[in-house]
C-alpha cells in the first residue's frame, strides 16, 4: 500500500516538473523582433490561437510559446488571456 502511494506521488511529480518555463516580458512594439527570432510570418494567416482557434495577427498577439520545434500563439481576447498558463498542463 505504501509503495502504491509513493508511486502515485512519483508519477504526479514526474510530468511537468521536467519543464523549465523561460519567460520574457516584451512590449507590443517588440513583436516584430520576436517574430523574426522565431521565424514566424503572421502575414501568411496560418497561425491560429491555441485556445480559441482565431487567426493571430501582429495586432492581436498576446503570447508566444516555443517548446522544441513546436510554436503556439495566444491571441489577446480576455478569455484567452485568462486561460493562458505560465505552467501549461
Amino acid at each position, binding site marked *: 500500500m505504501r509503495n502504491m*502511494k*509513493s508511486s*502515485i*506521488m512519483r508519477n*504526479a*511529480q514526474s*510530468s*511537468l*516538473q*521536467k*519543464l*523549465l*518555463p*523561460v*519567460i*520574457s*516580458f*516584451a*512590449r*507590443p512594439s*517588440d*513583436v516584430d523582433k*520576436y517574430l523574426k527570432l522565431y521565424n514566424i510570418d503572421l502575414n501568411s494567416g496560418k497561425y491560429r490561437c491555441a485556445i480559441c482557434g482565431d487567426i493571430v495577427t501582429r495586432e492581436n*498577439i*498576446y*503570447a*508566444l*510559446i*516555443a*517548446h*522544441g520545434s513546436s510554436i503556439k500563439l495566444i491571441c489577446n481576447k480576455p478569455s484567452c488571456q485568462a486561460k*493562458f*498558463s*505560465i*505552467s*501549461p*498542463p
Partner: protein
Amino acid sequence: MFDEILNFIKQEFSSVLSLVVGVIIGLIASPIIKTMFKAIKYLVALKDLGRLEKTYSSVLKYAKKNLKELGLILNKLPEEIVVETTYKDDVALYSRFRAFFKKNIVGKLRGKEILSITIFGNMSYEEQIAFIIQKAFEAIISSEYEKVLGVDLRDSLVTYYSYKFAFLSQSLVGKGVTLMLERKFNEAKSKEIILKLDSKELEANITLNPPPEARPLLDRVIMPIIELKSQEISPINDLSTIELTRREMQQLLTKIAEGKIGILFIGSRTPEEYLQYLKSRIDEFEGVLICARGKRAILCDHLVPEIIKEYQGSLGIETPSVKTFEGTLPSEENRLLYYKHVLISKRA
C-alpha cells in the same frame, strides 16, 4: 618686456597644460564612468529579473506550506521559472549571460526541457509581479477545479490567495503589488463567501468540538473537499453532471459561510463524546460536516449511522441527505493520507 613675455608664455602654457591634463583625465575617466554605469544597470537588471523568479518560487513554497493537501497539483507544476527579459519604466532589462547559464547549463544539467514563453503587453514592472503571482495561483487552483467550481468562485479564490500571498510577502513583492491585488480581490464576485470561510470567527461559531482549535476552515476543510471532489469527477465529461457538481459545491460553501452547517472534527476522543458534541447543538444547523483523516476515518464510519439515527429520532427527519467526499491527499511530509468528509443534512 622680457618678463611680460615670459609670464604670458607661462600662463598660456599652464592653461594649455591644464586643458591637456583635463582631456587625458576625461579620456581615462569616461570609459570608467561608462563601465560603472553599465555595471549598475546590469546589477539592477539581475535584481529585477531575480525578483520575478523568486516571486514564483515563493508562491509555490507558500502553497506547499498552507495548502499541502493540494500537493498532487503542486508537485505537477514546474519548480521554478527563469525570467529572461523584463522591462521597467520603458527600459528593457536582460542578461544574456544569465539567461544562457540558467537555460543551457543549470536547466540542461538538471534534465529540464526549455519552454520559452513571451508575453506581449504594456505592463508596469509591478503588474508583471502581480501577473506571475496570479498565474501561479491559477495553475494551482483554477485549471484543476473547472469541473467543481463555477468561474466566479474559482476567480475569487485565485485573487484571494494572490492577495493574501502578496500581503504576507510584502517585503518581496512591494506594497504597490499588494494594493493592486487587493483592488482586484475587492472586485471578486464571491469575495464575501471566501472572507467568511477564511475567518477564525466562523470557525469558532460552527465547530462543534470544544476550543482551542481556531484555524480558519478555508485551507483546512474547504480546499481538501474541493480537491477530493475534483479527483472524483475528473474522468466525467458529462456537462449536466459537471454543472450539477458546481451548483452543489457553490451551495455547500455558501451554507458553510452563512453558518448553516456545523463542523465536527474527529480526533482521539470517544464516539460518545463526539455524539454529545453533536447532540448539544444539532438543532442550530441545517446539517453537519464530519471531517476525519487517516485511521480516524474508521471512527467516522461508525459515527455516521449513529448521527443519522439522531437526525431521524430527535429531529424527525426520515431520510437525511448524506454526501461523502473521500480519497487520498498529501499531508505532512508529503505522505499520502486517507481523508473522509461526510455531510449529513436535513434536506436531500
